[in-house]
């Protein structure tokens, strides 16, 4: 039996998609529709990538406040990107196949996050410390990013500079196919592992007692998170609190942490917020570039509330 609240979320998400495709249609219909369809797919995919990566990351770190981006994983991605420009030179970089570049960046990000985040998880630091480390990683790699940006040729820089904040209006659609495939694969994997994730949420000792291979599961989850962060950062740029907003809303609605319900719920919430929000801003308010700012602001507020509540427990 499907949860009633999931049906409701699904219907709402569908309504948002229909509204996005149909409101204010003008001009060459075929052309406009295909443009919109591409953008819709991109929004859905980015939303799902951010939402699912946040859920998995929170489960594996046993933490409701952290998200991959708060831990600085998207800063790592941008760093990996500019490092590639630095090593290859701008000309070689731009002449590389976009998909190949993306592939290399994904692998680099996976390696970086395993190297940096896994040791921290293994020493079982407390939340405050993890948060601090995340801020440091973020700042460190953003500074390294701008350091390299200053060192390299200005022309090269223009190549790499493209994305330093989330922009839902100007989505990098070149990578859409490969990113879609990656997201889909991740989604299948997560769905397959939903019961394992429930057990992981019980904590290390209990999970091992129930037969989970802890290290392998942790590594697999981190790799998954890294690839999803790569997808969303490549398509729209870095986000900060968006994942937190999605998960907090979804948890509110379905009032469970069970992954078989939470994962579809959070994916649907992400679609509702992004597609619905973009419909509102682009088609109704005629102000298409503000969505990123507004949802990030809402996410930031959620972050503060969670921190404040957590500190009073």
């Amino acid at each position, binding site marked *: 039996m499907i949860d009633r609240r999931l049906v409701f979320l699904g219907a709402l998400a569908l309504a948002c998609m229909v509204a996005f495709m149909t409101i204010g249609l003008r001009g060459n219909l075929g052309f406009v529709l295909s443009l919109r369809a591409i953008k819709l797919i991109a929004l859905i995919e980015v939303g799902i990538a951010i939402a699912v990566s946040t859920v998995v990351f929170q489960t594996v770190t046993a933490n409701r406040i952290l998200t991959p981006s708060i831990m600085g994983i998207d800063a790592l991605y941008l760093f990996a990107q500019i490092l590639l420009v630095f090593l290859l030179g701008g000309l070689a970089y731009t002449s590389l196949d976009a998909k190949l570049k993306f592939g290399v960046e994904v692998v680099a990000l996976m390696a970086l996050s395993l190297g940096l985040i896994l040791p921290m998880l293994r020493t079982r630091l407390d939340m405050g410390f993890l948060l601090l480390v995340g801020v440091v990683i973020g700042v460190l790699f953003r500074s390294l990013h701008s350091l390299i940006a200053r060192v390299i040729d200005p022309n090269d820089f223009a190549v790499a500079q493209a994305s330093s904040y989330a922009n839902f209006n100007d989505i990098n659609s070149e990578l859409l196919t490969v990113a879609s495939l990656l997201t889909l694969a991740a989604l299948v994997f997560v769905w397959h592992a*939903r*019961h*394992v994730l*429930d*057990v992981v*949420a*019980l*904590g*290390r*000792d*209990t999970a*091992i*007692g*129930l*037969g*989970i*291979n802890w290290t392998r599961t942790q590594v697999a989850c981190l790799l998954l998170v890294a690839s999803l962060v790569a997808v969303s950062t490549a398509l729209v740029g870095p986000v900060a609190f968006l994942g937190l907003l999605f998960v907090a809303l979804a948890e509110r609605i379905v*009032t*469970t*942490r*069970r992954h078989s319900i939470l994962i579809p719920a959070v994916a649907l919430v992400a679609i509702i917020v992004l597609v619905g929000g973009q419909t509102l801003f682009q088609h109704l308010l005629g102000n298409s570039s503000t969505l990123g700012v507004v949802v990030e602001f809402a996410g930031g507020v959620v972050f503060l509330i969670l921190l404040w509540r957590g500190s009073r427990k």
Partner: protein
Amino acid sequence: MIRIENVSLAFGKTNILKEISVSIPKGGITALIGPNGAGKSSLLGLAARLLPLQAGDISVDNLSVSSTSGKVLAKKIAILRQDNHVGSRLTVRELVGFGRFPHSHGHLTENDHRIIDESLRLFGLTEMSERLLDTLSGGQRQRALVAMAYCQDTDYLLLDEPLNNLDMYFASELMKSLRNIADTRAKTIVIVLHDINYAGSFADRIIAMKDGQVVADGKPADIMTETALGGIYGFNIPVISVGGQPIALPFRR
């Protein structure tokens, strides 16, 4: 049989366990006693592969815990840790149901539900089975955790201070249930206890640890004596006999 051979454990420079060798044959209740910091939890942690083995070997029914896959071991041996922080957004039934994970991997069958119901009943949780864990008292939560370990339906059950937080009634109910399980279902139970009178009354064998070593090992009657207990805990504990059963009275002022 749980076979522990020459097991040593060190954290940094401190030796926590020193060349421990002991075997626990199949069946019955073995109580593990000893002062704080003796290494009881560490030993159980090693046996349940929560800590990596540093030296020596531990096997359960001839399956070495260091080389056997977690999936296989999870059907052989279950552990209740001394301190547990499980998520609060779970109902009692959900938590207990996780004990079935090694068998059904999250897809609960009729049979699983039957075992879950039985565990809930056995540990007096039926009435509160739909309540969230964070609305329970400490003792109720402890019982839910024991029920979860029981639900795993393994031949071996390691319980680290399961009587924590339990009132007198539920403490003795729990010990009676464990006795019953051991007798009627041929389960092997290893239980860490601080109340040696429970150990003396319910266990078939008592193993005492101190400073990372086994310092006494025998039938309750052999351990529940003034000299043996004095040696283990380092102070005088009078033992009297009530209806033929030795009772330790560490209450002298």
